[in-house]
């Protein structure tokens, strides 16, 4: 019965949500503690179960929810290596971020509502993680989308926040519709929505493709991947994520860095057998991932908003994960997902701490914060090192795994792009750090101060996590994690390669050095680079003109279509109407005479005649309902007689 307690894990945050949303007015500041407490309890319940799964256990339980005709709708939970890993990550990171948020959101007028939304989000995310079928998965997925919308637009007084929330919602919606259609297609093809059953079917079908409808499955896989593209902000639907940074920073950390956006990758991991079974889909995944990784990193090079840089970094890293999935590197992708969750959450929280301390977001306004905010700075640097892939921090191991899958698969183009991306990653992260924490303070108006212990505490916890979480996947533990994931699904594994590792370390150090040189020593270099490569600079600075592109080629056409239709209405139809009107006016003058004497006479005669007749007939319409009822009834009787006569 112990594993049944897993139901409590999503349920407890949901209770916190209910309490906060219903009784938030007098819970006031206690709202945060309610949310934190429920998350912590969920964490405490979840961790032993995760541990058991790490030891090799496997839990699943199913119950029938409804019988729709003969098809049972079954809900249940599934605790396999994948979900245990995610559960482990989400509960810990979520709890820490909520503790942080209790400090960060202090004094907000909608304090309790914030925690209500966050708890609802936690509940949905945990449901998604433990769910064992696509339907429940999708339901949780949609609730997460809703929470994301609510939280991005949390400061809905700001126009930008409201617009960003709308943008995020609409953009992800495209992917969600794809996902919905995808799993319905899958249901049509397989007759089940259950992950385990799907895996079994796929494993069975591996030998004989004839039994399964490959066309339908390909379509299903493509559509499901649409969901990933939307949720994980992959090219070309990545535009919402940077704007989503309008939400409170803990939200950015929790939803838009650590958990929700990772759900897309998790979806691919869940459907991995499907993607493996269907030919020609993995290259698409790889391509999308690589493009995203490179493009986002490239954009991040020139951004100035601290949260935006991190957002693009997130997109880039998600691209990494998707690439890993595309290269059949399930273990590598999942591993990177976990490590990324820790250090990216830490980065966002650090950024939040910086914003909290300085009240500015532009890195050009900052500088020299290391002295003033030591805790934040140190943890931030740890996270950046992890992200840049400096050994022995966690990011190095996971990134190395991904590079290894590319290398091992012999896909050297991808490998090269990923290396380049890693270089850029190290560069922009340390650009950020050097501009923010080192050098001299550039804006005298900024009075920075260290954040309270309530906020730095989670930072340190996450920092420790960022350092050690890579160990299970490292050679020190003999790549335990990859083997653990491989228990579930078999995918190609590659021998660790010293060359890849060396490349990885080299680009990381190169990037950091470059950033150091450019932003600490030779400060004019940055401007020079921008001047000498104007095309690249503009592309990067303007985010590849994606928003403009969409504005020009998606939004504008629709607007233009509207305008055209309106113009058509105004000129052609109205003109025709007006012209007709003028002509009619003229004609009517003539007709008037005819009308008055001939037609009117006739009409009046008709009217009189009708009125005369009507005075008998109109009595039927008495206004009494019962009269009508009687007539209906009598007609019914008449029909009955008729019918009997005929019969």
């Amino acid at each position, binding site marked *: 019965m112990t594993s049944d307690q897993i139901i409590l894990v999503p349920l407890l945050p949901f209770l916190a949500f209910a309490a906060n949303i219903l009784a938030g007015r007098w819970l006031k500041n206690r709202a945060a503690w309610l949310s934190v407490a429920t998350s912590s309890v969920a964490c405490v319940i979840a961790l032993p179960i995760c541990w058991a799964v790490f030891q090799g256990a496997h839990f699943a339980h199913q119950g029938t929810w*409804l*019988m729709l005709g003969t098809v049972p709708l079954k809900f249940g939970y599934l605790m396999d290596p994948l979900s245990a890993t995610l559960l482990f990550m989400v509960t810990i990171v979520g709890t820490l971020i909520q503790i942080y948020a209790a400090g960060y959101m202090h004094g907000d007028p909608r304090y309790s509502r914030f925690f209500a939304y966050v708890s609802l989000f936690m509940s949905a995310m945990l449901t998604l993680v433990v769910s064992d079928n696509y339907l429940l998965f999708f339901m949780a997925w949609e609730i997460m989308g809703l929470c994301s919308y609510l939280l991005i637009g949390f400061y809905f007084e700001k126009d930008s926040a409201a617009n960003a929330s709308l943008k995020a919602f609409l953009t992800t919606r495209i992917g969600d519709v794809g996902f919905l259609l995808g799993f319905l297609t899958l249901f049509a093809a397989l007759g089940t929505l259950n992950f385990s059953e799907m895996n079994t079917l796929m494993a069975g079908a591996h030998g004989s493709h004839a039994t399964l409808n490959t066309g339908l499955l390909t379509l299903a896989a493509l559509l499901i991947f649409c969901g990933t593209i939307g949720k994980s902000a992959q090219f070309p639907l990545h535009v919402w994520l940077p704007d989503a940074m309008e939400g409170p920073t803990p939200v950015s950390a929790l939803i838009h860095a650590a958990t929700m956006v990772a759900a897309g990758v998790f979806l691919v991991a869940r459907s991995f057998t499907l993607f493996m079974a269907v030919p020609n889909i993995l290259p698409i995944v790889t391509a999308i991932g690589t493009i995203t990784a490179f493009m986002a990193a490239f954009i991040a090079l020139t951004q100035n908003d601290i949260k935006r840089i991190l957002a693009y970094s997130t997109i880039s890293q998600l691209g990494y994960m998707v690439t890993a999935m595309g290269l059949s590197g399930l273990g590598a992708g999942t591993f990177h997902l976990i490590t990324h969750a820790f250090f990216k959450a830490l980065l966002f929280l650090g950024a939040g701490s910086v914003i909290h301390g300085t009240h500015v977001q532009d890195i050009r306004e900052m500088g020299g914060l290391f002295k003033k905010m030591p805790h934040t700075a140190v943890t931030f640097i740890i996270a950046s090192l992890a992200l840049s892939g400096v050994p022995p921090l966690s990011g190095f191991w996971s990134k190395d795994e991904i590079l290894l899958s590319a290398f091992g698969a012999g896909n050297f183009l991808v490998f090269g792009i990923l290396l380049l991306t890693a270089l850029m990653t190290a560069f922009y992260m340390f650009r950020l750090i050097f501009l923010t924490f080192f050098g001299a303070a550039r804006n005298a108006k900024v009075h920075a101060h260290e954040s309270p212990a309530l906020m730095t505490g989670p930072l340190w916890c996450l920092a420790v996590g960022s350092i050690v979480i890579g160990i299970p996947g490292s050679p020190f533990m003999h790549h335990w994690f990859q083997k653990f994931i491989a228990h579930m699904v078999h995918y190609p594994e590659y021998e660790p390669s010293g060359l890849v590792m060396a490349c990885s370390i080299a680009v990381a150090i190169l990037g950091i050095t470059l950033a150091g040189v450019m932003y600490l020593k030779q400060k004019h270099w940055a401007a020079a680079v921008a001047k000498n490569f104007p095309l690249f600079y503009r592309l990067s600075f303007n985010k590849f003109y994606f928003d403009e592109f969409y504005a020009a080629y998606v939004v504008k056409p629709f607007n233009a279509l509207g305008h055209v239709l309106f113009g058509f209405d105004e000129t052609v139809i109205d003109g025709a109407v007006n012209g007709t009107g003028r002509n009619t006016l003229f004609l009517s003058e003539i007709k008037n005479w005819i009308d008055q004497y001939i037609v009117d006479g006739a009409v009046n005669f008709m009217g009189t005649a009708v009125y005369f007749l009507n005075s008998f007939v109109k009595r039927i319409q008495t206004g*009494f309902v*019962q*009269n009508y009822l*009687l007539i209906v*009834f*009598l007609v*019914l*009787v008449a029909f*009955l*007689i008729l019918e*009997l006569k005929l019969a």
Partner: protein
Amino acid sequence: MPILEIAAKFGTYAVMAVILIFALGVVTFRNLFHCALCLAAALIGTAVIYVVLQAEYLAAIQILLYVGAVVTLIIFAIMLTEHLAGKTARQNNSQSLLAIVGLLGFVTLLATLILKTPWPVTPTALQAKNSVMGLGKALMGTYVFPFEVISIILIAALIGTVVIAKKDAPEEPL
């Protein structure tokens, strides 16, 4: 025990007759309150018929919902709209004769039809016992969707009733 069976049979006919008498009372009494009471009596009688047809559960539900709730509601409405000691006005409108003629036709026609039709009455069906358990299972299984829809309808009716019957801010009568 043929005597008991015959007695029960005639008892049933007697109940039917009583129901019909009360039903006539429902439509003919001048005092609306008496009508409502007759309705309650007729409904209780119908519950007895249900018991005869071995639908005990439904009989109980009939009494609980109809007599306990609907009739009470009707009586409330009567009390709110009727003047306690007011003279009752003419209760029937002028179409009663026509209605009676039509109804007689209707009843004769359908009665002949009923008598002529060979109903597929099966002895196995007559012997079948239906349990409350089976009813519950059917309600929660086969008919779960209509059941849920009913709950939505009930909620809608609840809200609608409150909205309609709520006293608005005072305004001019039409």
